[in-house]
């Protein structure tokens, strides 16, 4: 495997002390180096792209994005002349939160979806060594992102009145340690799950855990907002707070500065010992029987296999809507895989849940639920189609990836006389549950509160808007659904898409509010917008059709690397 080798791997391979240290911790240094090199090679040859930790390109991209959107603004916060301890606390909290969200997802994928193990399972690989190699790649996320998140703030911190010249070093060190702590803590948490949850349920449990964390984000955001308003009055020197892990790292970051925290009391020491024990025991739990249980982990629960065979009542409508049996095939296939594919659910569900909870959190009282047709008033209902539209971006951006994608050859053998119908089937599989169903669910309540005329007018307009978003978001689908292995770099497009979507949504909400001031203007605008949506969908469906054709061509000719020799 003659590919450029990472410094860490080569350092371990060349250094006796490093090998001795690995052996001391119960690992096999030769196997550890071999596995790190293997994962690196597979990643560089584009075979093993599902984990962010092995995809250096995706990591670099993410580090750049994080530096621009979070790191630099954090650095500028130093201009507000906050106390050094509070400034450091804010930066470390941002580091910890972002890494927690990322590593919660990545560690689950790395530890509980070990696709490479199916090839290696019969080899005499020491499970702790394999887990250590996998966790090393989780730690690489910390290594790439912490500098992007902390260096601007660490340098900006020199402007604080309490800071000395050593401050950037201690600030960066504290950030790195906080990041490592989060990574080990999350891996240990999964270790505890591995101990108590049957292997076949692990992926499902972790998926819902991630989704719930994302769902809780809006509430956490509100808390942070409240906390930021009283930042200047925070007194971090209280001994009663020393049990909080974040403050341990704040204390490290302030070493040598004029604003060093007082030494922690017994609560702090006890908390450190307890946390260390939880992490150590959690990581040890991952070792025993890991390889033997990996087959069950990858396959997941057999219960999911017992799929309901009842006939889908929507199929005649889909047949009519798409105009061909190929459309029904695409609709049925995509709908089923969206419910069953773990990679899809794990990547799409958190964002969907986050936006759903964000919208629900806006509904605080009756006054926000007024009819949008009341002149001069702003109704929260106007935001409903935009939240739905943005939610649909998540499945569109990851729908082409699947955990078990090898079955896509079936599309090559099928006489798909109508790729247009096939593309419409994909659109339908997203439109029915993502656009039509939510509107049908709220319709009775809207009729009850607003009367049927306002409810029907709003529903039609809203459905047109969601259809418009979905038509645009078809551009995110690069071809056949569920036909490629997951690529971690693909998740990088989520943030820019969400930002662009928010800008489009803001413009549309303002326009929508204006047209809803007079009901007949809303009717005319709705009809015109419907026409525009139809044209947009027509264009984007044609593009998707072309992408599918290209995808089928690639599947037909086989691997693109055919006959290519490796040095």
């Amino acid at each position: 495997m003659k590919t450029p080798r990472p410094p860490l791997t080569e350092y371990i391979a060349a250094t006796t002390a490093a090998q001795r240290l690995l052996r001391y911790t119960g690992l096999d240094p030769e196997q550890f180096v071999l596995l790190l090199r293997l994962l690196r090679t597979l990643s560089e040859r584009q075979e093993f792209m599902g984990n962010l930790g092995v995809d250096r390109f995706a990591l670099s991209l993410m580090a750049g994005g994080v530096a621009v959107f979070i790191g630099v603004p954090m650095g500028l916060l130093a201009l507000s002349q906050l106390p050094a301890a509070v400034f450091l606390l804010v930066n470390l909290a941002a580091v910890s939160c972002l890494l927690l969200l990322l590593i919660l997802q990545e560690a689950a994928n790395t530890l509980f979806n070990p696709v490479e193990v199916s090839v290696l399972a019969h080899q005499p690989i020491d499970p702790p060594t394999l887990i250590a190699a996998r966790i090393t790649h989780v730690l690489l996320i910390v290594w790439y992102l912490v500098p992007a998140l902390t260096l601007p703030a660490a340098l900006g911190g020199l402007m604080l009145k309490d800071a000395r010249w050593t401050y950037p070093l201690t600030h960066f060190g504290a950030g790195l340690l906080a990041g490592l702590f989060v990574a080990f803590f999350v891996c240990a948490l999964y270790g505890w799950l591995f101990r108590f949850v049957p292997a076949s349920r692990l992926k499902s449990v972790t998926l819902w855990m991630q989704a719930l964390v994302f769902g809780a984000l809006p509430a956490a955001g509100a808390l942070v907002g409240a906390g930021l308003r009283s930042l200047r009055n925070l007194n971090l020197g209280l001994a009663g707070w020393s049990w909080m892990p974040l403050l341990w790292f704040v204390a490290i970051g302030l070493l040598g500065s004029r604003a060093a925290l007082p030494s922690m009391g017994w609560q702090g020491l006890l908390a450190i010992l307890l946390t260390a024990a939880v992490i150590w025991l959690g990581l040890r739990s991952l070792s025993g029987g890991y390889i033997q249980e990996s087959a069950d982990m990858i396959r997941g629960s057999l219960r999911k296999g017992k799929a309901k065979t009842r006939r889908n009542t929507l199929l005649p409508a889909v047949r009519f809507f798409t105009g061909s049996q190929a459309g029904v095939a695409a609709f049925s296939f995509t709908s089923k895989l969206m419910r069953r594919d773990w990679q899809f659910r794990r990547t799409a569900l958190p964002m969907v849940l986050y936006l759903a909870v964000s919208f629900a959190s806006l509904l605080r009282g009756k006054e926000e639920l007024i009819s949008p047709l009341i002149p001069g008033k702003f109704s929260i209902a106007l935001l409903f189609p935009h939240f739905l539209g943005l939610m649909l971006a998540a499945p569109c951006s990851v729908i082409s990836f699947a955990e078990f994608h090898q079955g896509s050859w079936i599309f090559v053998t099928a006489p798909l006389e109508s790729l247009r119908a096939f593309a419409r089937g994909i659109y339908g599989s997203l439109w029915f549950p993502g656009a039509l169903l939510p509107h049908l669910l709220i319709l009775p309540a809207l009729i009850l509160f607003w009367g049927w005329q306002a409810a029907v007018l709003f529903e039609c307009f809203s459905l047109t808007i969601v259809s418009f978003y979905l038509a645009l978001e078809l551009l995110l689908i690069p071809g056949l659904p569920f036909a490629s292995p997951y690529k971690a770099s693909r998740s990088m497009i989520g943030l820019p898409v969400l930002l662009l979507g928010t800008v489009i949504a803001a413009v549309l909400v303002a326009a929508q509010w204006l047209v809803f001031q007079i009901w007949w203007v809303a009717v005319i605008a709705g009809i015109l917008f419907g026409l525009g949506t139809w044209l947009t969908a027509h264009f984007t469906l044609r593009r998707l059709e072309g992408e599918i054709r290209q995808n089928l061509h690639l599947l037909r000719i086989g691997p693109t690397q055919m006959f290519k020799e490796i040095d």
Partner: protein
Amino acid sequence: MNPDRHAVITVQDLFYSYDSFEALHGISFRIQRGEIVGLLGPNGAGKTTTLKLVAGILSSSRGSIDVGGFQLPRQHLEAKRIIGFVPEAAGLYESLSGAEFLELAGRLQQVPEKTLQARIGVLLDTFELRNVRARRIASYSKGMRQKVLLSAALLHDPQVLLLDEPLSGLDVASSVLIKDLLAALAARGTTILYSSHVLDVVEKVCHRALIVDGGSLVADAPLDELKSRTMESSLENVFRKLTHSEDTGPRIHRVLEILGP
């Protein structure tokens, strides 16, 4: 076979479940050194599960497995060092070349580098993969992939070979080569458990057959004994009798009926 020889594989009262589905219930058998034993059974009977358990890939919920004196799953690392396994579904890294994959397998088995390179060279020559050694496995045919898997299983000179449909995708010449190679390996003491649906190959290669059906062992005897016990002349008829395979006529009729005239 000499009955006094030491059993290399001993499986006792083995159970295995996938969630609530019991794939194996109470399988027991012993395989002596140098024996080639066929593992037969209908689809879903538990053949691959049995092989994976003996290979240390799965761990059983009940029962005991001993391979070369090593207890599974407790001593799975030691057992895996003396086992060569060819899985049914070709588990290969597509982006590695054939030679790279063999290097990886040999290094994981801790074969010394010089020996490893020599063995890789001979195996690539033997299986006529020399010319494609630097190509990515993604460009290999099914037969070529199977040859890579067989080579990887032989690299560390295992005492035990576990083969799951090893001739799948191979041409006639390669199949003959493998069959002769297996006989030669068994003659020098390698113990082979051979799972296949191709009964005439099993008839030619194996000394004894284990027949599993619905997760239970329904027969364990030398092939001639099986034939005389069931009063059948071919292994296929023995198999059908023991696994209660129904007459194919009505099923074919049903298929033709739904396909139309």
